[in-house]
């Protein structure tokens, strides 16, 4: 069998990324230009700023990925690009660069769902064993996905309001922590002496959905009330209580989903899966159940293009192709692809 080389491109939020992956498993290059430094001063990602920065970076990042891989365009089999979901203005920079590159070099183009990419990041590190449950947890997503086999997705739970990472950022802001807040809360939670109790949003019996806005409001109210009374806020205990509530709910639902579906593996993906407290709790709970738990290394957890190339390779093998009318789809749903 011939090797498959795919160029992946990802611009769905605030990272401009390109990567070349061999056979969906071996990373030949993985280039990410982050906007965090530019976006920091705004305390979050400003879509128009993100779009402008993507245009500045896009060809540089693709060139770097091709050079590091040591390949020419004619050595590639296809171009895979994040089609959605994400910020529309950001998505269409990647989509149009990918289409122009593919057109100029006579290559097929494949539109990839961002979340499928996060899940397939595991192909690049340790592999995927089906059936599996994937927990995608980031600033934009909190989802539980069941995969019976390669290319088959079933969404079994999602957030009804804020994404977990969004709640982390908002709580961090109230506590006066820098953006992005996740790592700071994680660190403080570990250092904390005490814990402030916050509610757990388990929703109705049996549900795999999430809700974080109530928890977020409870934390904000707690901090405001304390400040109004002139009391000092113990930032670390608040961070610990908030994190504990998030982890409790996420671990309980993930483990229950894994047991109910009888899976061999649970995969965590997305920026918040870098959270040490969450990793430890998930790993411990799943070990008890005898279920394999995998989290890719940090550079594959956060947004990158290698994961898009990896998912794109599975789609390529299944015969999936897009065309020059491919567009950015901010609200794209996770769809399955069927193997030939």
């Amino acid at each position, binding site marked *: 069998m011939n090797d498959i080389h795919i160029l992946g491109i990802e611009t769905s939020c605030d990272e401009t990324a390109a990567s070349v992956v061999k056979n969906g498993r071996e990373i030949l290059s993985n280039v990410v230009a982050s906007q965090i430094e530019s976006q920091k*001063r705004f305390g979050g990602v400003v879509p128009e700023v993100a*779009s402008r920065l993507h245009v500045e970076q896009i*060809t540089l990042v693709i060139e770097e990925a091709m050079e590091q891989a040591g390949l020419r365009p004619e050595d590639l089999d296809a171009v895979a690009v994040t089609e959605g979901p994400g910020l529309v203005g950001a998505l*269409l920079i990647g989509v149009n660069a990918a289409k122009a590159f593919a057109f100029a*070099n006579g290559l097929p183009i494949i539109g990839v769902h961002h979340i499928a990419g996060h899940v397939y990041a595991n192909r690049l590190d340790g592999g995927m064993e089906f059936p599996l449950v994937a927990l995608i947890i980031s600033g934009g997503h909190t989802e539980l996905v069941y995969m019976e086999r390669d290319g088959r997705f079933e969404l079994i739970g999602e957030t009804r309001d804020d994404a977990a990472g969004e709640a982390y950022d908002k709580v961090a802001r109230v506590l006066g922590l820098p953006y992005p807040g996740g790592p700071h809360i994680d660190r403080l939670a570990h250092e904390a002496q005490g814990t402030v109790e916050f509610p757990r949003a388990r929703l109705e019996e049996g549900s795999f959905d999430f809700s974080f806005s109530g928890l977020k409001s409870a934390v904000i109210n707690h901090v405001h009330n304390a400040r109004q009374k002139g009391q000092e806020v113990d930032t670390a205990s608040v961070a610990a209580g908030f994190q504990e509530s998030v982890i409790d709910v996420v671990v309980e639902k993930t483990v229950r989903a894994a047991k109910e579906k009888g899976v061999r593996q649970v995969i965590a993906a997305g920026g918040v899966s870098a959270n040490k407290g969450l990793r430890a709790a998930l790993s411990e709970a799943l070990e008890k159940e005898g279920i394999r738990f995998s989290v890719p290394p940090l550079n594959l957890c956060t947004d990158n293009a290698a994961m898009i190339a990896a998912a794109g390779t599975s789609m390529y093998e299944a015969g999936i192709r897009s065309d020059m009318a491919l567009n950015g789809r901010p609200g794209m749903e996770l769809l399955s692809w069927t193997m030939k």
Partner: protein
Amino acid sequence: MIWLGLDTANAPLSVALVRDGELLVELNSAMGLNHSAGAMPAVEQLFKRAGIKPADIDAIAVSEGPGSYTGVRIGVTIAKTLAWTLDKPLVGVSSLRVLASNVFTYGVTISPMIDARRGNVYAGLYRRQEDGTLKCLMEDRHMALSDLLDRLKKEGNPVVFVGEGARKNEEALREALGELGRRAHFTQDIPRASLLITEAQQAEPETVHSFVPEYRRITEAEANWQKANGEAREK
């Protein structure tokens, strides 16, 4: 020498291939197209009709703005990616200059206009010279329509207004300038990629990687940040 030209700066779409000063194919649409989905299929069709391959072109010209932020970015992204991967020179041309190039009348001030809402426009001022080239009289900018009209009234020269912004603000233009102002024919209100190429041939190539649109406005977030931090410093 074969040029590819691309203008997606506003609602209209125009793509063209020109060989040695001769038009091969041009595709124009005034409709409010979705450029993200529509620009590359138009480019693909352009090459198919001309019967040439992407690698056969020698240079790329693109409308660099001002205009719709998203529209300008799509054109610039496509153009710089093609220029980089095909290793061809890239030239950016003002989208207002492209509109002005639709007007071939001598001795008048050409006022291309793109509506920017809330009484504002993107505008530049141009003049067609004896040798046929376009001279820029006022650099492109984001400004209040009333300021532009005051300036034109004061200058007292005959003016031709062109572009979608001129159509939208037709009444205000007539009221302000009366006999002094004229409207271009409606077919001149949409940019032509072939004329974009003509303008590009007189300009210097860009550095491809660092080439970005001429937005002519900073983002709202940056403006607010500057305001907040400027005030903080003053305190």
